């Protein structure tokens, strides 16, 4: 931050043009190589199953929406005679299925799993950010006895290996009827996320001058009104950034999801790896499921660019 003013004055330490070019070339090469697996996911998702497993791997091929069709439907194999006896296909997916001597039977579980992911991620984000902003405000503004210990306690809950707490949570949820429910997963992810929310939001609220609230309170606001009408609007950016981090965590989470959900409340991450076709994994369908699942995160990463560093270090490093 402070360097801008100095470095423009004289360029003693500015990198030479050659150094810049070399650096640029190396960084671009790394970026391109690192994106190959992601590009491959996109390519595979629009391949036909035979193209996806051909050797050598095909870069040029006839694009096909079969992967996406297979992702959203279940199909069964039928005899030629039966298929010929059917009325004309009414959808592209049906036509593709019939070309492979199959008929579409029903919708697959992908969409419900995707919706579960969405509901659980949004629900837990609202809950953890709501709780987090309150606790963060209290820690930021008031003298709380044992504040540092409480904050450390909140952070330390994040250090637990998920599998270690999964056993008793599994037993507990079984007792109280929360196993394999969305509510159970929302509560669980909120508990994991609230530590991040408190730490990040405390940093953001610390940066809002206390004088604003004090002025508001002198004008007749109560503490709660000042919190609602002065602090919250000021902290909007921080709250949004924190919410996106919580959203991404819940969206991506796998360990709890695979151990604690199996049907009703199962999210997409445990579901995508078990998408199978006839005779093994249906890679175009898996790739299609993966691609659709990753798109929201790509958007959020771009939105979060500026706050990324802060989020991944629990607010320890700020730019």
């Amino acid at each position: 931050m402070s360097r801008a003013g100095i470095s423009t004055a004289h360029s003693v330490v500015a990198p030479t043009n050659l150094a810049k070019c070399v650096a640029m070339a190396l960084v671009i090469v790394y970026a391109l190589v690192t994106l190959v697996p992601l590009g491959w996911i996109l390519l595979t998702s629009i391949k036909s199953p035979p193209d996806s497993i051909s050797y050598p791997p095909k870069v040029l091929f006839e694009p096909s929406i079969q992967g996406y069709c297979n992702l959203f439907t279940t199909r069964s194999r039928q005899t030629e005679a039966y298929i010929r006896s059917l009325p004309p296909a009414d959808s592209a997916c049906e036509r593709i299925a019939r070309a492979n001597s199959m008929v579409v039977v029903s919708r697959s579980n992908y969409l419900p799993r995707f919706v579960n992911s969405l509901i659980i991620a949004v629900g837990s984000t609202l809950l953890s950010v709501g709780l987090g902003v309150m606790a963060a405000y209290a820690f930021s503004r008031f003298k709380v006895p044992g504040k540092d210990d409480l904050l450390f306690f909140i952070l330390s809950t994040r250090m637990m290996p998920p599998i270690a707490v999964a056993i008793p949570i599994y037993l507990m949820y079984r007792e109280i009827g929360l196993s394999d429910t969305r509510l159970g997963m929302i509560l669980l992810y909120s508990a994991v996320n609230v530590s991040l929310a408190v730490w990040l939001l405390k940093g953001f609220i610390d940066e809002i001058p206390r004088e604003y609230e004090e002025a508001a309170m002198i004008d007749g606001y109560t503490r709660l009104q000042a919190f609602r009408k002065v602090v919250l609007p000021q902290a909007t950016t921080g709250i949004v950034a924190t919410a996106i981090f919580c959203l991404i965590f819940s969206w991506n989470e796998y360990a709890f999801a695979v151990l604690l959900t199996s049907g009703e409340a199962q999210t997409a991450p445990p579901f995508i790896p078990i998408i199978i076709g006839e005779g093994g994994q249906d890679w175009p369908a898996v790739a299609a499921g993966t691609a659709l699942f990753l798109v929201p995160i790509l958007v959020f990463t771009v939105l979060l660019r500026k706050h990324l560093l802060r989020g991944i270090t629990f607010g320890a490093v700020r730019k």
Partner: protein
Amino acid sequence: MTTSSIGTRAAQATPPALAQRVRGLSDRAIAWLFIAPTMLLLLAINIFPLIWTIRLSFTNFRANRPNAEVLNVGIDHYVAILNDPDIWGPMQATAHFLFWTITLQTLIGFTLAYLIDRKFRGHGFWTTLILIPMMLSPAVVGNFWAFLYQPQIGLFNYVVSFFTGIPPSSFEMLGSVKLAPWAIVIVDTWMWTPYVMLICLAGLRSIPDYIYEAAEVDRASAWRQFWSITLPMVLPFIMLAVLFRGIENFKMFDLVNLLTSGGPGSTTEVVSITLKREAFEKWRTGYSSALAIILFVAVFGLANIYVKALNAVKNR
């Protein structure tokens, strides 16, 4: 400037009706009201289960036989785990994974950060692209890497054979005892190098220019500047990144579970996988609870060091 004194002054300066409103809830009450829900949630979903785990670790309880008689076995499980030669397999697998992922990620991450800090045109754009892998779901992406690693048809094997001439079906990244530990290291490095890079970049940007200018005036060589200015000043940031990655990779479950599930045999069985096998496949709940507690104590120790380091970086 205590807030309560301002509140009192405001109360004295305003008519009684308003004064009552200003006082409203006392700050103390608000503080507890605001903190309590978070604490309750953490107590219910984190601390209560933890205490339950501790209790279970002293019993022979099995979650798949909830009606069987539960016997107290004292510290038998702990003794068994610490004396079990089989536990050193997973410990070694974890150590191999930790050591290599952290080494590679630090080296590549720092180098990248250093290059990006040359501030060439468009560095912001390329940085964002590089950051993408770490934002994605390890499980979903890890699963796809299993496809890239397929011996005959996988892109990874094809690329390796393209550059080295080794036939692509002659090696199995996930199926061979020798290669599987490296397969998981490669995916983790691919995924988390950007994380280390981002923290290193913050470290590099925190070094004020005048230090380099002073060194320039003293005619310190570029090499010398790197070793006596750049590296020492970025070191706390690198430490922070290493500790974060250390804690996360010590708990590593999703990537490994999807790539190898601990196989072939148990060559890539890191401790989280062992825990899952004991708890959810063999249903030895008591034994796995004891193992979970041992791991938790280890991670908690790491966490303590981490918080100290974190404060050191913060207070610079």
